[in-house]
């Protein structure tokens, strides 16, 4: 267990180029346990790319990702869940052919105790494993208020509900770090619930949040990092960020136009 105040994740000197385009340039960022860090910035600023590097989808030209003091070397996305890092996707990324319950169970794989071989023959603990996973998945669905949809296929559910399923799939793994890529997009009525949820998560895990909904960002984040053209142009508390003229110019626009309203 990492103690509060200790850096759980450190991203250091990260540079990513796609051909001639520099998507990230010398980005530094650290995440303490039990905090919510917001990453904001204009479209194309490199936020998703940052997540992609942390998850191992994109290899940086330089820089490193340090997890609990250990640099992650040539890590691959599938290792992350095991390390305690879980990410939601900017789209939905639900498994269309799996029921809601199965979707969530698929995310709970890190809790399975048996290896591939016993699972292959269905022997030993593997049966009990399955019911454990199902129980966890149901519990998480219950917490998100969608337990009654367990046996439905995600395709027929409204977008907002699907987002919750995706969130449940992430939470069921009980990660130490949750990377949320635009969790509020497509949600509006549920924004309040979402912010409550994120705040409650803070007790168990750190959260990095990429989001364009400034209300949400301002409410839940302990710290905010602002990217523009791949560079960190500002970092600080939400209040500091909101007051920063560079941020206003690059990202927020004329504050009169987007009056916060909750």
């Amino acid at each position: 267990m990492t103690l509060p105040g200790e850096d759980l994740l450190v991203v250091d000197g990260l540079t990513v180029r796609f051909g001639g385009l520099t998507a990230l340039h010398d980005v530094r960022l650290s995440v303490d346990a039990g905090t919510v860090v917001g990453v904001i910035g204009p479209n194309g600023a490199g936020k998703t790319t940052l997540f992609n590097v942390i998850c191992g989808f994109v290899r940086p030209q330089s820089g490193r990702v340090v997890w609990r003091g250990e640099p992650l070397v040539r890590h691959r996305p599938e290792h992350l869940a095991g390390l305690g890092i879980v990410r939601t996707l900017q789209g939905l990324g639900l498994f269309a052919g799996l029921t809601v319950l199965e979707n969530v169970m698929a995310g709970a794989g890190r809790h399975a105790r048996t290896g591939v071989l016993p699972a292959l023959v269905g022997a030993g603990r593997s049966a009990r494993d399955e019911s454990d996973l199902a129980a966890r998945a149901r519990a998480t669905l219950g917490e998100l208020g969608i337990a009654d949809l367990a046996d439905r296929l995600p395709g027929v559910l409204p977008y907002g509900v699907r987002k919750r399923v995706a969130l449940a799939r992430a939470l069921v793994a009980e990660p130490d770090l949750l990377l949320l890529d635009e969790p509020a997009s497509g949600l509006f009525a549920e924004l309040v619930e979402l912010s409550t949820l994120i705040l409650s998560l803070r007790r168990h895990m750190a959260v990095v949040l990429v989001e364009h909904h400034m209300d949400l960002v301002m409410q839940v984040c302990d710290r905010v990092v602002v990217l523009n053209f791949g560079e960190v142009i500002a970092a600080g508390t939400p209040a500091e960020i909101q007051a920063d003229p560079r941020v206003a110019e690059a990202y927020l626009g004329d504050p009169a136009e987007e009056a916060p309203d909750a």
Partner: protein
Amino acid sequence: MQEFLDLTLGGISAGAVYAALGLALVIIYRATRVVNFAQPALALISTYLAYSVTKATGSYWLGFAVAIVAGTVLGVATERLLIRPLRHRSELSSIIVTLGLLLVLQAIAGMIWSNEPLAFPYAFDFRGRFSANDLFVVLIVLAIAALVLVVFKYTPLGLRMRAAAFAPDVARTLGVRVGLMLTVGWGMAAAVGSLAGLLATPPFLFPNVLDGVFVYALTAAVLGGLDNPLGTIAGGFVLGVGLSYVSGYLGPEMVTIAALAILVVVLIVRPSGLFGRAKVRRV
């Protein structure tokens, strides 16, 4: 050296034929995301028609023209009757349906023209290390490939066809007549396929004559990158020449294994073919 040259030249004209049939596959794949297993059979029927017309009229070129037209009609009919109903179904459904069509058409060919081989002439004199006919085959395939490429890449029709293929619903809301585009795609492909059939068939015509060519054509298309007409042409020639060397230096029984080996090696290095664009799923 002499042998090397002969094998190279032989490989080039064989490769042209693989490229042509491969091109037909690519056009359909681009248009409808379907690998058309019935392609050799569509070409087969039109080649048989060419045979009958040539036999009846004595004119090779009349038969040639009839084959291209008949092929186009067959392609259009296939799309309308068999492929369109499968629009929203998995790729497997269309694989099986085109496979079924392959069997039906081969059987029909056998019923009408019997399973015994028939003599089917070359377009031009076939004699010589690189004969007039070889030259014809290579040139016409290159010309057709260039035409297809230009249509796809630089014309509004091509853009519409690609849009219809990649995202039918979106294309529709942009005013593209998706159904028409798919039909045009099948028609075009079947015309090219029929041409390939006419070029590949000589000297003999029988119901399974294009099976082997089809396997190599698919290999060529996959080698080149199924979305890429240029790659398919290159893939066809690479495969044709490569297999010719294998046949000449290692023995004919090694040809199919070599095709497999070439394909596997290429795909391991480049999973979307030599010229295919890797499809990156953005996260």
